Structure formats: C-alpha cells, structure tokens
C-alpha cells in the first residue's frame, strides 16, 4: 500500500479493500518508526488524522467521496491549520495554534484528504537545505548524513520515504523543486496566482506560491487540482476557471520542442548531474521530442535580484512578529522598543535575521533605487528572456540543482554558497512561471538527480503531461530509499 499511487489508493478505498482508518494507521506507524531518524515532521496529529479518516470512511460508505477522500496528506508547516500548531519551523511560532485554516488546507479537508501532520522546513521558508530550523534538520532518506534540500524539505522526505502518499509545499525560489530533486520525488510549483496564499505564512509575497509533492506527475496533478483555484481572500489569486490538471497527462510527446538554455548547461553543473540530465534528454528524443538551444542571458542575475526582492518583502512581512498579537514574547524587557528588539532577537534564527536586515537596508532611505528598483528592472529582463525563449520551444528543460544532496553542515556557515544552489530555480519565481522537478537518474553515491521542466504561464497541465510521458517509460520515480 505504501507504494501505491493516489489513483490506486482511491480505487482500493472505493472498493473497500482497505479503510481510510487502516491506511492512515499504516502511515502513522511509519512516521512513528522513521521520523526519529528523518525528522520530516514537526508535529504529528494522530488523533486528528484518525478522526478525519473515520469521517472519510463515512463519506466512502455514503458514496460521496472524491478522488482524494480518505488519502493521507502532510502539510508543510507554513500552512495555517486550525487547532494544530503552525510553527514555520521557528521558535517565534513554537506554540502558535492558528484560529483558521489556510485556503489550501481547507480545500484538502473539503476533499476528504486526511492530514497526518505538519512537516519540517527552513524557518519561514528561508533556506535551501532544511537546516535553518528550530526543530533540527530534516534528513535525506537516501543518506541520512545528507541534507534534504529546502525549504520544503520535510514534505519532500515525507513523500520520498513513504511517510505520506502526498504533501504540500511552497516555492519562493525553488523550495518545492529543489528538495524534490534532492530526495527523488516529483514536485510542481504552478504559475504565480494559481494557488491561494491565504493562511500561507508569507515570506516574499510576490514570489511565494503553493505547490504539490507526489511520487509521480500523475499524483501531483491530482493534488494540484485539489489545491488550486480562485480565492477572493488572496488579492493576488487569479480569477480563472478551475482546471483538471490530469486532463492532458496521456498526450503523446512526439513533436514536443524542448528548449535547453545554454546558460544552464555551461559551467556550474556537476558532472554526475549533467550525465543524468543528458540521459533524460536522450529519452525524450526517443519519445519523439526535439531539443533546441535557447538563451536566458540574464538568468545569472536572478540570484542577486532575488536576494534583494525576497529579503525586502520579507522584512516587511515579518514585521508582524512583534510579540504583541501572537508568537514569542521575551520574558524580560524595559519598554516597548526593548520588548520588540528582544522578542525578535530571541524568536528568529540567524538566517531569518540576516534576510530581514538585508531587506531593511535595501529599502532604507537613499538605497531604494540602487537596490530594490534595480532588482525589479532585472526581474523584467529575466521574465522577457523566458518569453523570447518560448518563441522557439514548448517547454524548457535543465537541471533542478547543480549538485546532488550535500552533507549536513557543509554549506551552513556560508550563506552565499547556499544561495548559489538555487541558480536554476530562482529565475522561474521571478518570472512567475510554472516549474516542475522529476527524478531522472542518480549521481554520485546513488543519490537522486532532478530534471527541471519550465512552462509558459498556466501550462501546468502540459508540464505534467511532459513529466508523465517520461515516467511511463522509466522507473526513477518508483525507486524507494531503504531507510529504518
């Protein structure tokens, strides 16, 4: 059962071969056995999960079940869950219990999915290794001395180690795609505005976007269909018709034009990653696709521009954590300013503080034009590069990450080295395009390598189709780590 796809699970539940309570218990038992090693979950909600499973069983018996009814799910701990604590992996929110559900959480509850718990992440989604967390690093199930990637590391691990059949994540600069690549699962970040940000604790509001983790593109399509949709409570949620993201999965790939940005294939990618990517592209050619070189000349500026825009937005968003309405408040202080300063110094981790300071500086008087405005201008150049590339291709492909998962602690003392890991993913967020990572091979140490597919705006169903076509003829996505 732990290897079954969402479609297979729904069929088994529908045929009463297994109940949701049995399925949920199976995954809760796996979490209890393996989470001490993997640290994928910050909070496990045994009682809530079993109650939701019983309700799902009633729906299944009554014939009112949908495609996800009774299937367990893990939510990144950035999504607010009424009655279950939401920490954002921060001491600041260690004991925070949200009075409401995030839109995504509400949608999945309504669909009858069974929440197992809340997954580990980099604090406030700031990081690329899931080491910036108050609750201890998540560990890669392929080699527990290695990082999971981040920021949605716990969700990626939950799916990779079969602690949950599916999981939600968020992606501001690669936080779904990169951990998906490093743990060997499939992850999709849709176009900006497709998934509501209501109740998703904000990091960088013009970049943050909810996404889906699954074992396959087929599973991601089902989950994304349940997550996406217009929500008037998010002013940037797009008023679009609801979509069935599974609708195009089985389209043939003959004639597909895959653009390969020459900048992605220049120096910087490790040889083992390159070999796996090249083999994946060869497989696509066998399926009838053609590859064409395209250029994203400003892509190299994505990281510097991102590290202005994201911290600027973060410094504003995180000003709400002041020890007054929610979150950590220092025990001793002399006056209001001292209470703010101490509460925030104690509540935030080092990387979060650094990004708030960078953001405060670039927005401060006299520096706005040189930094924030310049970054926004580069953002336009980067977005325009993609549009020019899409004149010559249907999707863009390349590596998700320049390396396989690295050793815990290896890059922790050098923020810039950590930032450079997101070289292939960040430009996609700046442009607001959809991106997907799928397992396409292994590199050194038998560690997973992810192939990134980038589509034009609202091409999610097509991206999932391109990934599904690959997964029909390969079994990288079926490999399971031997853990525990």
């Amino acid at each position: 059962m732990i290897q079954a796809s969402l479609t297979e699970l729904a069929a088994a539940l529908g045929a009463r071969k297994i109940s949701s309570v049995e399925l949920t218990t199976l995954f809760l038992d796996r979490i209890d056995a393996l989470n001490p090693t993997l640290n994928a979950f910050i909070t496990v909600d045994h009682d809530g999960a079993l109650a939701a499973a019983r309700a799902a069983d009633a729906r299944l018996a009554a014939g009112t079940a949908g495609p996800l009814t009774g299937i367990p799910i893990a939510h990144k701990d950035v999504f607010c869950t009424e009655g279950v604590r939401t920490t954002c992996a921060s001491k600041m929110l260690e004991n925070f219990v949200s009075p409401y559900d995030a839109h995504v959480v509400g949608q999945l509850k309504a669909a009858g999915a069974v929440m197992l718990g809340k997954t580990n992440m980099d604090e406030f989604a700031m990081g690329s290794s899931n080491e910036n967390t108050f609750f201890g690093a998540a560990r890669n199930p392929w080699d527990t001395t290695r990082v999971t990637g981040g920021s949605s590391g716990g969700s990626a691990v939950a799916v990779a180690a079969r602690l949950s059949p599916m999981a939600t994540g968020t992606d501001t600069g690669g936080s779904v795609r990169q951990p998906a690549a490093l743990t060997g699962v499939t992850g999709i970040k849709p176009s900006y505005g497709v998934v509501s940000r209501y109740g998703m604790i904000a990091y960088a509001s013009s970049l943050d976007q909810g996404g889906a983790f699954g074992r396959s593109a087929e599973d991601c399509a089902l989950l994304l269909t349940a997550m996406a949709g217009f929500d008037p409570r998010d002013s940037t949620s797009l008023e679009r018709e609801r979509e069935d993201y599974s609708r195009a999965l089985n389209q043939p790939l003959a004639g597909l034009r895959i653009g390969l940005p020459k900048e992605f294939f220049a120096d910087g990618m490790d040889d083992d990653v390159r070999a796996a990517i090249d083999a994946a592209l060869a497989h696509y050619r066998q399926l009838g696709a053609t590859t064409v070189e395209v250029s994203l000349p400003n892509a190299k500026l994505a990281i510097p521009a991102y590290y202005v825009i994201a911290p600027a937005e973060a410094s504003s968003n995180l000003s709400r954590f002041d020890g007054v309405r929610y979150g950590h408040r220092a025990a001793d202080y002399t006056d209001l300013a001292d209470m703010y300063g101490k509460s925030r110094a104690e509540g935030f981790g080092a990387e979060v503080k650094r990004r708030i300071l960078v953001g405060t500086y670039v927005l401060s008087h006299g520096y706005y034009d040189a930094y924030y405005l310049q970054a926004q201008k580069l953002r336009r150049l980067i977005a325009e590069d993609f549009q020019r590339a899409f004149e010559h291709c249907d999707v863009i492909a390349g590596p998700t990450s320049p390396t396989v998962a690295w050793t815990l602690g290896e890059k922790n003392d050098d923020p810039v080295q950590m930032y450079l890991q997101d070289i292939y993913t960040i430009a996609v967020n700046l442009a607001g395009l959809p991106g997907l990572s799928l397992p396409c091979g292994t590199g050194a140490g038998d560690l997973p390598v992810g192939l990134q597919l980038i589509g034009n705006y609202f091409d999610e169903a097509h991206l999932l189709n391109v990934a599904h076509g690959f997964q029909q003829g390969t079994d990288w996505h079926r490999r399971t780590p031997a853990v525990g």
Partner: protein
Amino acid sequence: MSLSLDEVRHIARLARIELGDADATDTLAKLNSIFGLIEQMQAVDTRDVEPMSHPQELAQRLRPDSVTETDRRDAFLRVAPQTEAGLYLVPQVIE
C-alpha cells in the same frame, strides 16, 4: 560596497532586532558577503527598463463594501502573549 559595524547596528535598530556585540561582528561579515553577491546587479544598464513588481500585473481587485468577516475576537486574542479585558497588553508607552 562594504557595510560598517555602525551601519549594521543601525539597520538592526530599524528592523527592531536586538544585536549583541558578538553577533554584530559575525553579522557584518555575512552581510558584506551577501552584498558582494548583490552588487553583481550593478553591472547591467537598466536605464530604459520598466520595473516589474509582480508576475501578473493586474489591477487590484475590488469588492462591495460590505461586512464579510464574523467577530472572532476571542479566538484571535487567545493566541496573544498577554491580554486583558479584550485588549492586547504591551508595556506602557506614554508616561
């Protein structure tokens, strides 16, 4: 560009994050390394480029001016560190 220790302390004050002397030195080194990366932006001439603030440049959506929220004051106050009589408590601001 290189920040000074005084500038780092000033930014920390603006951000309302207390910064001890030991932390300030380490923070200074890391911020300067981050700004070293950010400075790469300045190599590009962007004189005629319109800034892009958002991926989907849409007008702000408006809604009818009517009450849509219910009163959940108690639920929201319950998560606050210190409250009294339906109010958030903070240290005295005005003497």
